[in-house]
Protein backbone atom coordinates (compact mmCIF):
# COMPACT_ATOMS: atom_id res chain seq x y z
CA UNK A 1 0.00 0.00 0.00
CA UNK A 2 1.13 3.46 -0.80
CA UNK A 3 0.71 5.02 2.54
CA UNK A 4 0.13 4.35 6.19
CA UNK A 5 -3.53 5.26 6.12
CA UNK A 6 -4.23 2.76 3.40
CA UNK A 7 -2.37 0.14 5.40
CA UNK A 8 -4.45 0.84 8.49
CA UNK A 9 -7.71 0.79 6.55
CA UNK A 10 -6.77 -2.48 4.91
CA UNK A 11 -5.82 -4.04 8.21
CA UNK A 12 -8.60 -2.83 10.47
CA UNK A 13 -11.50 -2.41 8.08
CA UNK A 14 -13.07 -5.80 8.89
CA UNK A 15 -12.64 -5.32 12.61
CA UNK A 16 -14.24 -1.88 12.57
CA UNK A 17 -16.98 -3.05 10.26
CA UNK A 18 -17.96 -5.90 12.58
CA UNK A 19 -17.75 -3.67 15.62
CA UNK A 20 -20.03 -1.23 13.82
CA UNK A 21 -22.45 -4.02 12.99
CA UNK A 22 -22.52 -5.01 16.65
CA UNK A 23 -23.22 -1.42 17.63
CA UNK A 24 -25.89 -0.66 15.06
CA UNK A 25 -29.01 -2.16 13.65
CA UNK A 26 -27.87 -3.74 10.46
CA UNK A 27 -25.25 -3.34 7.81
CA UNK A 28 -26.63 -0.12 6.35
CA UNK A 29 -26.07 1.84 9.52
CA UNK A 30 -22.83 0.01 10.08
CA UNK A 31 -21.54 1.13 6.72
CA UNK A 32 -22.42 4.71 7.55
CA UNK A 33 -20.50 4.45 10.79
CA UNK A 34 -17.51 2.76 9.15
CA UNK A 35 -17.33 5.39 6.48
CA UNK A 36 -17.55 8.12 9.07
CA UNK A 37 -14.83 6.55 11.18
CA UNK A 38 -12.34 6.08 8.39
CA UNK A 39 -13.00 9.47 6.90
CA UNK A 40 -12.24 10.95 10.29
CA UNK A 41 -9.08 8.88 10.35
CA UNK A 42 -8.04 9.90 6.84
CA UNK A 43 -8.57 13.55 7.62
CA UNK A 44 -7.10 13.31 11.07
CA UNK A 45 -3.97 15.25 11.82
CA UNK A 46 -3.57 13.48 15.14
CA UNK A 47 -0.13 12.08 15.90
CA UNK A 48 -0.43 8.44 16.90
CA UNK A 49 2.17 6.79 19.07
CA UNK A 50 1.98 3.39 17.44
CA UNK A 51 -0.37 1.01 15.69
CA UNK A 52 -2.04 -0.05 18.92
CA UNK A 53 -2.81 3.56 19.55
CA UNK A 54 -4.46 3.79 16.14
CA UNK A 55 -6.46 0.64 16.78
CA UNK A 56 -7.70 1.93 20.12
CA UNK A 57 -8.57 5.25 18.51
CA UNK A 58 -10.54 3.55 15.74
CA UNK A 59 -12.50 1.46 18.23
CA UNK A 60 -13.35 4.43 20.39
CA UNK A 61 -14.37 6.54 17.41
CA UNK A 62 -16.51 3.70 16.10
CA UNK A 63 -18.41 3.42 19.37
CA UNK A 64 -18.77 7.18 19.56
CA UNK A 65 -20.01 7.38 15.99
CA UNK A 66 -22.56 4.67 16.73
CA UNK A 67 -23.74 6.64 19.74
CA UNK A 68 -23.96 9.76 17.65
CA UNK A 69 -26.03 7.88 15.12
CA UNK A 70 -28.45 6.76 17.79
CA UNK A 71 -28.74 10.25 19.18
CA UNK A 72 -29.18 11.93 15.83
CA UNK A 73 -32.57 13.42 15.12
CA UNK A 74 -32.64 11.61 11.81
CA UNK A 75 -32.26 8.25 13.52
CA UNK A 76 -34.85 8.95 16.18
CA UNK A 77 -37.39 10.08 13.60
CA UNK A 78 -36.98 7.20 11.21
CA UNK A 79 -37.60 3.52 11.38
CA UNK A 80 -35.00 1.33 9.70
CA UNK A 81 -36.09 -1.38 7.38
CA UNK A 82 -35.89 -4.80 8.88
CA UNK A 83 -32.64 -6.35 7.88
CA UNK A 84 -32.24 -9.97 8.75
CA UNK A 85 -28.80 -11.49 8.73
CA UNK A 86 -28.85 -15.21 8.14
CA UNK A 87 -26.30 -17.52 9.65
CA UNK A 88 -25.33 -21.06 8.89
CA UNK A 89 -26.26 -22.29 12.35
CA UNK A 90 -29.21 -21.41 14.52
CA UNK A 91 -26.98 -20.95 17.54
CA UNK A 92 -25.03 -18.27 15.75
CA UNK A 93 -28.20 -16.45 14.88
CA UNK A 94 -29.44 -16.72 18.45
CA UNK A 95 -26.21 -15.35 19.85
CA UNK A 96 -26.00 -12.55 17.32
CA UNK A 97 -29.53 -11.32 17.92
CA UNK A 98 -29.25 -11.79 21.67
CA UNK A 99 -26.25 -9.51 21.72
CA UNK A 100 -28.06 -7.05 19.48
CA UNK A 101 -30.88 -6.79 21.93
CA UNK A 102 -28.56 -5.68 24.72
CA UNK A 103 -28.29 -2.02 25.60
CA UNK A 104 -25.51 -0.33 23.67
CA UNK A 105 -23.07 0.00 26.57
CA UNK A 106 -23.22 -3.74 27.25
CA UNK A 107 -22.92 -4.58 23.60
CA UNK A 108 -19.64 -2.71 23.34
CA UNK A 109 -18.08 -4.52 26.25
CA UNK A 110 -19.37 -7.94 25.20
CA UNK A 111 -18.11 -7.50 21.64
CA UNK A 112 -14.68 -6.27 22.65
CA UNK A 113 -14.31 -8.94 25.29
CA UNK A 114 -15.55 -11.94 23.36
CA UNK A 115 -14.81 -11.09 19.76
CA UNK A 116 -11.74 -8.89 19.98
CA UNK A 117 -10.53 -10.84 23.02
CA UNK A 118 -9.46 -7.67 24.71
CA UNK A 119 -8.74 -7.70 28.41
CA UNK A 120 -10.82 -5.71 30.87
CA UNK A 121 -7.93 -3.29 31.26
CA UNK A 122 -7.65 -2.77 27.51
CA UNK A 123 -11.38 -2.24 27.20
CA UNK A 124 -11.25 0.29 30.01
CA UNK A 125 -8.48 2.18 28.25
CA UNK A 126 -10.23 2.14 24.91
CA UNK A 127 -13.57 3.23 26.33
CA UNK A 128 -11.93 5.74 28.64
CA UNK A 129 -13.63 4.29 31.66
CA UNK A 130 -12.75 2.47 34.85
CA UNK A 131 -11.94 -1.22 34.90
CA UNK A 132 -14.57 -1.71 37.61
CA UNK A 133 -17.16 -0.24 35.31
CA UNK A 134 -16.13 -2.59 32.52
CA UNK A 135 -16.32 -5.50 34.91
CA UNK A 136 -19.81 -4.63 36.08
CA UNK A 137 -21.02 -4.00 32.53
CA UNK A 138 -19.57 -7.31 31.44
CA UNK A 139 -21.24 -9.07 34.32
CA UNK A 140 -24.62 -7.51 33.67
CA UNK A 141 -24.29 -8.16 29.97
CA UNK A 142 -23.61 -11.81 30.58
CA UNK A 143 -26.59 -12.07 32.91
CA UNK A 144 -28.87 -10.50 30.32
CA UNK A 145 -27.54 -12.80 27.64
CA UNK A 146 -28.04 -15.80 29.90
CA UNK A 147 -31.66 -14.84 30.34
CA UNK A 148 -32.14 -14.49 26.64
CA UNK A 149 -30.26 -17.59 25.60
CA UNK A 150 -31.05 -20.05 28.36
CA UNK A 151 -32.93 -22.94 27.04
CA UNK A 152 -33.69 -26.36 28.20
CA UNK A 153 -31.38 -28.95 29.54
CA UNK A 154 -29.62 -29.37 26.23
CA UNK A 155 -28.93 -25.72 25.63
CA UNK A 156 -25.35 -25.01 24.61
CA UNK A 157 -25.48 -21.79 26.65
CA UNK A 158 -26.35 -23.35 29.97
CA UNK A 159 -22.84 -22.68 31.21
CA UNK A 160 -22.78 -19.05 30.18
Amino acid at each position, binding site marked *: *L*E*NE*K*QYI*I*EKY*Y*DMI*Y*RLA*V*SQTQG*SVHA*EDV*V*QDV*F*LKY*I*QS*VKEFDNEEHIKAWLIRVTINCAKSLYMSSWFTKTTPLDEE*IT*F*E*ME*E*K*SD*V*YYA*VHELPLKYRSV*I*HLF*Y*YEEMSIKEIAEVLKTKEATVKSQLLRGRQM*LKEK*LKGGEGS*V*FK*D*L
Partner: protein
Amino acid sequence: VFSKIYKQAMDEITPNEDLKASLLKTAAEYKKPKVIPLYKYAATAAAVAAVVVSIKAVPYITNVNTTEIRSITTQMQTEAVATVRPQETGIPLQSAQMSDLPQSEKNGNGSLAEQKVTPKPKSSAKTVLTQSTQVPTALQAEAIPTAATEDTEVFVNDGGISNDEENVVPAAMNFGEDSGGMAAYSRMVVPEDELLLEECAPMGFEAVVTDEKQCSFVNGEARIDVSISKSEDFVGDRVDVGEAEVWKNGETYTLACGELCVQIINSGASDEAVKELIENIVK
Protein backbone atom coordinates in the same frame (compact mmCIF):
# COMPACT_ATOMS: atom_id res chain seq x y z
CA VAL B 1 -19.12 -21.85 24.11
CA PHE B 2 -20.71 -18.42 23.83
CA SER B 3 -17.42 -16.82 22.90
CA LYS B 4 -16.74 -19.37 20.18
CA ILE B 5 -20.20 -19.14 18.65
CA TYR B 6 -20.29 -15.37 18.86
CA LYS B 7 -16.96 -15.14 17.05
CA GLN B 8 -18.14 -17.53 14.38
CA ALA B 9 -21.34 -15.53 13.94
CA MET B 10 -19.50 -12.25 13.58
CA ASP B 11 -16.99 -13.83 11.19
CA GLU B 12 -19.84 -14.80 8.92
CA ILE B 13 -20.77 -11.18 8.44
CA THR B 14 -19.24 -10.06 5.20
CA PRO B 15 -17.93 -6.53 5.20
CA ASN B 16 -18.81 -4.32 2.25
CA GLU B 17 -15.79 -4.55 -0.03
CA ASP B 18 -16.94 -1.69 -2.23
CA LEU B 19 -16.89 0.63 0.73
CA LYS B 20 -13.46 -0.60 1.66
CA ALA B 21 -12.15 0.03 -1.85
CA SER B 22 -13.68 3.46 -1.83
CA LEU B 23 -12.04 4.31 1.48
CA LEU B 24 -8.68 3.03 0.28
CA LYS B 25 -8.99 5.19 -2.81
CA THR B 26 -9.94 8.19 -0.72
CA ALA B 27 -6.95 7.63 1.52
CA ALA B 28 -4.64 7.38 -1.47
CA GLU B 29 -5.92 10.55 -3.05
CA TYR B 30 -6.35 12.59 0.10
CA LYS B 31 -4.09 15.52 0.43
CA LYS B 32 -3.82 17.38 3.64
CA PRO B 33 -4.92 20.96 3.30
CA LYS B 34 -2.10 23.39 3.53
CA VAL B 35 -2.02 25.32 6.71
CA ILE B 36 -1.51 28.94 5.91
CA PRO B 37 -0.41 31.12 8.78
CA LEU B 38 -2.89 33.74 9.78
CA TYR B 39 -0.57 36.57 8.90
CA LYS B 40 -0.67 35.49 5.28
CA TYR B 41 -4.42 35.80 5.25
CA ALA B 42 -4.09 39.21 6.79
CA ALA B 43 -1.63 40.33 4.17
CA THR B 44 -3.79 38.99 1.38
CA ALA B 45 -6.91 40.59 2.77
CA ALA B 46 -5.15 43.90 3.13
CA ALA B 47 -3.86 43.74 -0.41
CA VAL B 48 -7.26 42.92 -1.83
CA ALA B 49 -8.92 45.63 0.18
CA ALA B 50 -6.36 48.18 -0.90
CA VAL B 51 -6.24 47.49 -4.60
CA VAL B 52 -8.71 45.51 -6.58
CA VAL B 53 -7.34 46.28 -9.93
CA SER B 54 -3.90 47.65 -10.34
CA ILE B 55 -3.19 48.30 -13.92
CA LYS B 56 -0.54 50.80 -14.73
CA ALA B 57 -1.86 54.21 -15.33
CA VAL B 58 -1.61 55.31 -18.89
CA PRO B 59 -1.31 59.03 -19.28
CA TYR B 60 -2.96 60.39 -22.34
CA ILE B 61 -1.28 63.70 -22.44
CA THR B 62 2.24 64.25 -21.33
CA ASN B 63 3.50 67.19 -23.27
CA VAL B 64 1.14 69.74 -21.87
CA ASN B 65 0.41 70.83 -18.39
CA THR B 66 -1.93 68.04 -17.71
CA THR B 67 -3.28 68.62 -14.30
CA GLU B 68 -6.27 66.48 -14.08
CA ILE B 69 -7.75 63.47 -15.56
CA ARG B 70 -11.20 62.69 -14.61
CA SER B 71 -13.42 59.74 -15.06
CA ILE B 72 -17.14 59.80 -14.85
CA THR B 73 -19.48 56.92 -14.95
CA THR B 74 -22.99 57.78 -15.84
CA GLN B 75 -26.15 56.32 -17.19
CA MET B 76 -26.37 58.94 -19.82
CA GLN B 77 -27.51 57.73 -23.17
CA THR B 78 -25.01 57.81 -25.94
CA GLU B 79 -27.00 60.28 -27.93
CA ALA B 80 -27.03 62.82 -25.14
CA VAL B 81 -23.32 63.33 -24.99
CA ALA B 82 -21.81 66.33 -26.63
CA THR B 83 -19.22 65.04 -28.96
CA VAL B 84 -17.48 65.83 -32.11
CA ARG B 85 -16.50 62.98 -34.24
CA PRO B 86 -13.37 63.96 -36.11
CA GLN B 87 -14.07 61.77 -39.06
CA GLU B 88 -17.34 63.58 -39.52
CA THR B 89 -15.86 67.06 -39.37
CA GLY B 90 -12.93 66.21 -41.56
CA ILE B 91 -10.66 68.27 -39.39
CA PRO B 92 -7.21 66.89 -38.71
CA LEU B 93 -7.27 66.00 -35.11
CA GLN B 94 -3.97 67.34 -33.97
CA SER B 95 -4.38 70.74 -35.44
CA ALA B 96 -8.08 71.12 -35.05
CA GLN B 97 -9.07 74.63 -34.11
CA MET B 98 -12.36 75.81 -32.76
CA SER B 99 -12.66 78.10 -35.69
CA ASP B 100 -12.39 75.13 -37.97
CA LEU B 101 -15.33 73.43 -36.48
CA PRO B 102 -18.70 73.79 -38.13
CA GLN B 103 -20.84 76.45 -36.54
CA SER B 104 -23.46 73.89 -35.79
CA GLU B 105 -21.06 72.24 -33.47
CA LYS B 106 -20.41 75.29 -31.36
CA ASN B 107 -22.61 76.77 -28.77
CA GLY B 108 -22.86 80.33 -27.61
CA ASN B 109 -19.81 80.47 -25.42
CA GLY B 110 -17.60 78.68 -27.82
CA SER B 111 -18.13 75.28 -26.40
CA LEU B 112 -19.19 72.47 -28.51
CA ALA B 113 -22.89 72.16 -28.94
CA GLU B 114 -24.64 68.96 -28.16
CA GLN B 115 -24.75 66.70 -31.08
CA LYS B 116 -26.15 63.29 -31.49
CA VAL B 117 -23.77 60.76 -32.76
CA THR B 118 -24.21 57.24 -33.80
CA PRO B 119 -21.88 54.81 -32.11
CA LYS B 120 -19.58 53.13 -34.49
CA PRO B 121 -17.55 50.02 -34.05
CA LYS B 122 -14.47 50.36 -31.98
CA SER B 123 -12.23 49.03 -34.69
CA SER B 124 -13.44 51.74 -37.00
CA ALA B 125 -12.66 54.46 -34.51
CA LYS B 126 -9.19 53.21 -34.05
CA THR B 127 -8.59 53.12 -37.74
CA VAL B 128 -9.61 56.70 -38.23
CA LEU B 129 -7.47 57.92 -35.44
CA THR B 130 -4.46 55.99 -36.51
CA GLN B 131 -4.58 57.14 -40.06
CA SER B 132 -5.37 60.75 -39.56
CA THR B 133 -3.74 61.71 -36.35
CA GLN B 134 -1.33 59.05 -35.26
CA VAL B 135 -2.89 59.43 -31.88
CA PRO B 136 -2.32 56.27 -29.97
CA THR B 137 -5.18 54.60 -28.33
CA ALA B 138 -5.56 54.52 -24.65
CA LEU B 139 -4.16 51.05 -24.61
CA GLN B 140 -0.88 52.36 -25.91
CA ALA B 141 1.11 53.89 -23.13
CA GLU B 142 2.63 56.60 -25.24
CA ALA B 143 2.53 60.30 -25.08
CA ILE B 144 0.21 62.04 -27.44
CA PRO B 145 2.06 64.69 -29.33
CA THR B 146 -0.35 67.54 -29.30
CA ALA B 147 0.69 71.06 -30.02
CA ALA B 148 -1.28 72.48 -27.17
CA THR B 149 -1.85 76.17 -27.30
CA GLU B 150 -4.09 76.91 -24.42
CA ASP B 151 -7.71 77.28 -25.31
CA THR B 152 -7.73 76.64 -28.99
CA GLU B 153 -6.62 73.10 -29.17
CA VAL B 154 -9.08 70.37 -29.62
CA PHE B 155 -7.74 67.15 -28.47
CA VAL B 156 -9.46 64.02 -29.50
CA ASN B 157 -8.94 61.01 -27.47
CA ASP B 158 -9.93 57.54 -28.32
CA GLY B 159 -10.52 55.91 -25.04
CA GLY B 160 -9.83 52.62 -26.63
CA ILE B 161 -12.40 50.95 -24.56
CA SER B 162 -15.72 49.57 -25.45
CA ASN B 163 -17.80 46.60 -24.91
CA ASP B 164 -18.86 44.33 -27.67
CA GLU B 165 -21.83 46.17 -29.03
CA GLU B 166 -21.09 49.80 -28.39
CA ASN B 167 -18.03 51.75 -29.15
CA VAL B 168 -15.79 54.41 -27.89
CA VAL B 169 -16.72 57.70 -29.40
CA PRO B 170 -13.82 60.00 -29.96
CA ALA B 171 -14.84 63.19 -28.35
CA ALA B 172 -13.58 66.68 -28.11
CA MET B 173 -14.54 69.54 -25.91
CA ASN B 174 -13.32 73.03 -25.78
CA PHE B 175 -14.37 75.31 -23.02
CA GLY B 176 -13.83 78.48 -24.86
CA GLU B 177 -11.96 81.51 -23.76
CA ASP B 178 -12.87 81.11 -20.16
CA SER B 179 -11.52 77.68 -19.82
CA GLY B 180 -7.88 78.52 -19.97
CA GLY B 181 -7.17 75.05 -21.20
CA MET B 182 -8.66 72.19 -22.92
CA ALA B 183 -10.41 69.07 -22.07
CA ALA B 184 -11.44 66.02 -23.87
CA TYR B 185 -13.21 62.95 -22.92
CA SER B 186 -14.05 59.65 -24.29
CA ARG B 187 -16.66 57.34 -23.11
CA MET B 188 -17.56 53.79 -23.11
CA VAL B 189 -20.77 51.98 -22.74
CA VAL B 190 -20.61 49.20 -20.28
CA PRO B 191 -23.23 46.62 -19.54
CA GLU B 192 -26.16 47.99 -17.68
CA ASP B 193 -25.63 48.26 -13.99
CA GLU B 194 -22.19 46.87 -14.27
CA LEU B 195 -18.88 48.55 -14.48
CA LEU B 196 -15.89 46.41 -14.92
CA LEU B 197 -13.01 47.86 -13.06
CA GLU B 198 -10.54 46.37 -15.44
CA GLU B 199 -12.21 48.19 -18.28
CA CYS B 200 -11.76 51.52 -16.59
CA ALA B 201 -8.18 51.02 -15.70
CA PRO B 202 -6.80 51.30 -19.24
CA MET B 203 -8.33 54.72 -19.43
CA GLY B 204 -5.51 55.95 -17.32
CA PHE B 205 -7.08 55.43 -13.99
CA GLU B 206 -6.13 53.10 -11.30
CA ALA B 207 -9.09 51.57 -9.63
CA VAL B 208 -8.73 51.59 -5.93
CA VAL B 209 -11.25 50.23 -3.53
CA THR B 210 -11.23 52.57 -0.62
CA ASP B 211 -13.68 50.64 1.43
CA GLU B 212 -16.48 48.18 1.01
CA LYS B 213 -18.85 50.72 -0.43
CA GLN B 214 -16.67 52.79 -2.59
CA CYS B 215 -13.96 52.59 -5.12
CA SER B 216 -12.00 55.38 -6.66
CA PHE B 217 -10.54 55.87 -10.04
CA VAL B 218 -7.56 58.04 -9.54
CA ASN B 219 -4.91 59.50 -11.73
CA GLY B 220 -2.84 62.19 -10.24
CA GLU B 221 -5.11 64.77 -8.74
CA ALA B 222 -8.20 63.62 -10.53
CA ARG B 223 -10.38 61.12 -8.90
CA ILE B 224 -13.77 59.60 -9.35
CA ASP B 225 -15.40 57.77 -6.55
CA VAL B 226 -17.93 55.15 -7.34
CA SER B 227 -20.18 53.69 -4.76
CA ILE B 228 -20.59 49.97 -4.91
CA SER B 229 -24.00 48.66 -4.19
CA LYS B 230 -22.98 45.06 -3.85
CA SER B 231 -19.78 45.12 -1.93
CA GLU B 232 -19.36 41.38 -1.90
CA ASP B 233 -19.00 41.41 -5.64
CA PHE B 234 -16.25 43.92 -5.90
CA VAL B 235 -13.18 41.85 -5.24
CA GLY B 236 -11.46 41.54 -8.54
CA ASP B 237 -14.67 41.25 -10.38
CA ARG B 238 -17.57 43.24 -11.65
CA VAL B 239 -19.13 45.79 -9.44
CA ASP B 240 -22.54 47.26 -9.53
CA VAL B 241 -22.34 50.96 -9.70
CA GLY B 242 -24.86 53.11 -8.03
CA GLU B 243 -23.65 56.59 -8.55
CA ALA B 244 -20.50 58.44 -9.20
CA GLU B 245 -19.25 61.59 -7.68
CA VAL B 246 -16.69 63.81 -9.21
CA TRP B 247 -14.62 66.04 -7.08
CA LYS B 248 -13.24 69.34 -8.10
CA ASN B 249 -11.80 71.59 -5.47
CA GLY B 250 -14.17 70.44 -2.87
CA GLU B 251 -17.23 70.58 -5.06
CA THR B 252 -19.08 67.42 -5.63
CA TYR B 253 -21.06 66.54 -8.69
CA THR B 254 -23.15 63.50 -8.35
CA LEU B 255 -23.79 61.64 -11.53
CA ALA B 256 -26.11 58.85 -12.22
CA CYS B 257 -24.09 56.09 -13.68
CA GLY B 258 -23.97 52.48 -14.53
CA GLU B 259 -24.26 52.48 -18.23
CA LEU B 260 -21.88 55.00 -19.56
CA CYS B 261 -18.37 55.57 -18.47
CA VAL B 262 -16.87 58.85 -19.49
CA GLN B 263 -13.32 59.84 -19.16
CA ILE B 264 -12.37 63.44 -19.04
CA ILE B 265 -8.92 64.59 -19.79
CA ASN B 266 -8.61 68.05 -18.52
CA SER B 267 -5.59 70.07 -19.23
CA GLY B 268 -5.75 73.24 -17.30
CA ALA B 269 -9.47 73.76 -17.60
CA SER B 270 -11.11 75.98 -15.07
CA ASP B 271 -13.51 74.75 -12.47
CA GLU B 272 -16.37 76.26 -14.35
CA ALA B 273 -15.30 74.56 -17.52
CA VAL B 274 -15.10 71.22 -15.84
CA LYS B 275 -18.47 71.78 -14.29
CA GLU B 276 -19.87 72.71 -17.63
CA LEU B 277 -18.42 69.66 -19.17
CA ILE B 278 -19.90 67.48 -16.52
CA GLU B 279 -23.24 69.15 -16.84
CA ASN B 280 -23.14 68.60 -20.56
CA ILE B 281 -22.39 64.99 -20.01
CA VAL B 282 -25.15 64.36 -17.59
CA LYS B 283 -27.82 66.14 -19.58
